[in-house]
């Protein structure tokens, strides 16, 4: 069985509006966890952010529902590990949405850098670079807790990965 190019486009279009369950400000497409559509044999390919990301099952279900709603319930959703997800796959639009939501996005191309040598993180509220790490882990494995010295607000930083 083969999926038509048009069918693949329709599925992708349906997935554009599916939000990440933990950070609804960003879509799964912009987060880079939807790896694409395989046309033969047909499958929607998704990848987890972290090995143990608890949202993985919820993401799979959300993708399943969107693909069903688009009329492609016979196309399976497949989880792939390779190549491993990196924050470099977060789109520009995704980064803007994160910032608007109050989460400092990871700088582009940062995934290969060591974590300690990272560039200064700009405060998502006032834009100041005068910020400091409070905790290496935040509310989820993909975020760290930071604080702005200028406006004093705490904020989440989406870690380079």
């Amino acid at each position, binding site marked *: 069985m083969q999926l038509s190019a048009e069918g693949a486009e329709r599925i992708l279009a349906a997935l554009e509006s599916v939000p990440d369950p933990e950070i609804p400000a960003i879509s799964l497409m912009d987060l880079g966890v939807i790896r694409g559509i395989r046309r033969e044999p047909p499958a929607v390919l998704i990848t987890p952010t972290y*090995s*143990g*990301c608890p949202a993985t099952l919820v993401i799979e279900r959300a993708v399943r529902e969107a693909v069903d709603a688009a009329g492609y319930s016979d196309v399976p959703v497949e989880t792939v590990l390779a*190549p491993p997800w990196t924050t470099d796959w977060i789109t520009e639009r995704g980064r803007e949405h994160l910032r608007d939501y109050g989460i400092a996005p990871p700088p582009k191309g940062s995934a290969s850098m060591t974590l300690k040598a990272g560039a200064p993180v700009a405060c998502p509220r006032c834009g100041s670079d005068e910020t400091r790490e409070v*905790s*290496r*882990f935040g509310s989820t494995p993909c975020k760290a807790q930071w604080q702005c010295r200028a406006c004093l607000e705490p904020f989440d930083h989406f870690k380079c990965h």
Partner: protein
Amino acid sequence: MNRDFFPADTRTDSAPHGAMFDYLLRLGDDSLILCQRLTEWCGHAPALEIDLSLANIGLDLIGQATLFLNFAGAIEDRGRDGDRLAFHRDASDFRNCLLVEQPNGDFAQTMARQFLFSTAQLGLFEQLMLSTEPRIAEIAAKGVKEVRYHADLAADWIVRLGDGTDESRNRMVVGLDWCWRFIDELFLVDDVEAGLIEQGIAVDRSALRGAFDARLSSVLADAGLPAPVYPRGVRGGRAGRHSEHLGHLLATMQHLPRSYPDAVW
């Protein structure tokens, strides 16, 4: 290379499923058991930030364990998945190293154990990414970035406590002292792994010791802590000979699924 630590008869119970199954249990059980230990800190850590860190490290580890154990179940082909393997095996069927099952002790001992394990696991995963078994390679490639973060975070705490107050320094010295006897086992190669190493599936752990020692020396120096004095090593975890601590850990971890096998949530 040391390949003669386990007498042949201690391995017969795992022979029917082959070395590959055993190797995957070793990889998965290390992560699973350490995760279970870290969850004991949940709600008890010295600060909220540390609570979050330990729980999130545990989350990464449970993810790795799930991937390795599900694959082990598929290789075994007897209908057991990762959950079944985690919750319905007895202590003697676990293949984790002894270090990860050791009690948390205080926060210093927990971070000492974390630093030593994560640093060894990092070296292992960096090489496992090149495994000729593609599934192992991709699980390692997925996990290696997580493990690097764990090793870095733990190294920070070794320095912070070692180079802190007299009290924190003493505690870190005691914490590390508790761990030294379990380090040799992390780099053991036995017959189960020797065959897999020849096929390029497994990594020769003994070859990772040099880089581990170098990293350890550097962090201990930063922390102003003394170089390790290794007592006689304790081993046996890879052959299912565990300390009494594992039984207690499993009693907690497996209680619910064993008492109520059909429970779901």
